[in-house]
């Protein structure tokens, strides 16, 4: 497709690199809060193209990485029930819980199936009426609408053996908490696909309250370089605002249909984020109206006590305070094939991206 190749065009990337160098006079630290951005930035080596004044840090943008051990432990406990089939996105299966992983449970005979979409999980439920099918719903605003659509579909089709275990989260509370806690940054590279759903309104508080810009960016190198250029320009002119670079996809108002579905099915609750702790109204809980589909409400299970892994500094990395190379386990004890923490498991995790592209 023409405009994918074009957005990887080396000349345009170089052009932006020069422009950034030209206008950047003061040191600026920018955080990206989307795992897809972290991957692109490392893959295309963008930090090496930027002047010394511009520093990029990764934030809590990988849904698998911020998911709690307790969540994994409960999923493991569900998988041990005789009459349960677990359906999950592939990313989650190798994330270590306190004493096991879903992959290990599968090896021991648990019925755990990797699906690409909640729709596949619902097909499994249709074909296995004597089992309870639990779908592990993780992800931010980009992914949560598909879970909402699934639950609405299940409800019209009266699919009674299908349940969602929701760890869906929303991004703005995390972005604001990081600033509140004094993490030193001067602007956000805004998440492109979260914003596809939400629109730009959810970030308006950030320039107003914190005097800091947000530029919603696409994922190709040209997109990211242009977004960085826009942020540096805002910073140099002392004119922080919310802007969209990724206009071919993100509309200012977002995706209204998806927003309505989210609103119909989910309500906010306080939720735990790795590295950030409990954040107010940052998680999505299934509303009472649809509790028939809520695994937490409908399937009782005993869960082991949570134990965090020793030596893993994933939490500090998710806060942008440390880089993967600062971790003593990185690349030695902890590798993608034998991960200690969630940041190494997910292909969108900082440790994983650094391991692949920046060791």
């Amino acid at each position, binding site marked *: *497709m*023409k*405009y*994918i190749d*074009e*957005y990887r065009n080396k*000349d*345009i990337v170089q*052009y932006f690199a020069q*422009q950034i160098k030209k206008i950047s006079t003061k040191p600026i630290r920018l955080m990206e809060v*989307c*795992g*897809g951005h972290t991957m692109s930035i490392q893959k295309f080596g963008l930090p090496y193209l930027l002047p010394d004044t511009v520093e990029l840090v990764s934030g809590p*943008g*990988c*849904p*698998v990485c911020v998911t709690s051990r307790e969540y994994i432990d409960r999923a493991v406990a569900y998988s041990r029930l005789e009459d349960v089939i677990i359906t999950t*996105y*592939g*990313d989650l299966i190798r994330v270590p819980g306190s004493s096991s992983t879903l992959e290990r449970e599968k090896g021991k005979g648990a019925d755990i199936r990797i699906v*690409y*979409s*909640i*729709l*596949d999980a619902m097909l499994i439920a249709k074909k296995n009426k004597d089992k309870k099918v639990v779908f592990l719903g*993780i*992800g*931010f605003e*980009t*992914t949560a*609408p*598909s879970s909402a*659509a699934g639950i609405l*579909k299940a409800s019209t089709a009266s699919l009674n053996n299908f349940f969602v275990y929701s760890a869906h989260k929303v991004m703005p509370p995390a972005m604001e908490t990081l600033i509140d806690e004094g993490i030193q940054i001067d602007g956000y590279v805004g998440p492109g*696909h979260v914003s*596809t*759903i939400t629109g730009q309104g959810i970030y308006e508080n950030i320039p107003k309250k914190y005097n800091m810009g947000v530029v919603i960016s696409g994922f190709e190198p*040209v997109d990211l370089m242009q977004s960085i250029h826009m942020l540096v320009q805002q910073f140099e002119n002392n004119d922080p605002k919310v802007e969209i670079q990724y*206009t*071919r*996809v*993100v*509309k200012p108002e977002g*995706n*209204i*249909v*998806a927003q309505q*579905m989210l609103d119909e099915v989910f309500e906010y609750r306080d939720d735990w984020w790795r590295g950030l702790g409990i954040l107010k109204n940052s998680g999505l809980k299934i509303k009472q109206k649809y509790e028939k589909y809520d695994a937490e409400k409908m399937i009782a299970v005993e869960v082991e006590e949570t134990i965090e892994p020793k030596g893993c500094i994933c939490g500090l990395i998710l806060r942008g305070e440390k880089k993967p190379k600062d971790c003593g386990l990185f690349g030695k004890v902890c590798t993608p094939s034998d991960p200690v923490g969630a940041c190494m498991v*997910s292909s*969108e995790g900082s440790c994983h991206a650094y391991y692949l592209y920046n060791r």
Partner: protein
Amino acid sequence: MCLSIPARVESIEEGIATCSVGKSSYRTSLDLISNEDVKVGDYVLIHTGFAIQKIDTGEANKILATFEEFKELNEEMDKEEAIHNKRLI
């Protein structure tokens, strides 16, 4: 998982589109963009089995054209700056 891919709509049947990315094809629910007029040949962004947005190809091309203009303008200004030995902006 968080990655979303742009794909071309090849056919549509009862709210499900078959979309292609390179040589692979995906069945994609159009539930989340039910308010959009999606036609064969359009590009959509797919995420976990759902199209989450129609891609504005016009907008994409417009921006690419602007990049080119910027580049030319910039080169010209660089030349002029070199000749007069002073910064224009």
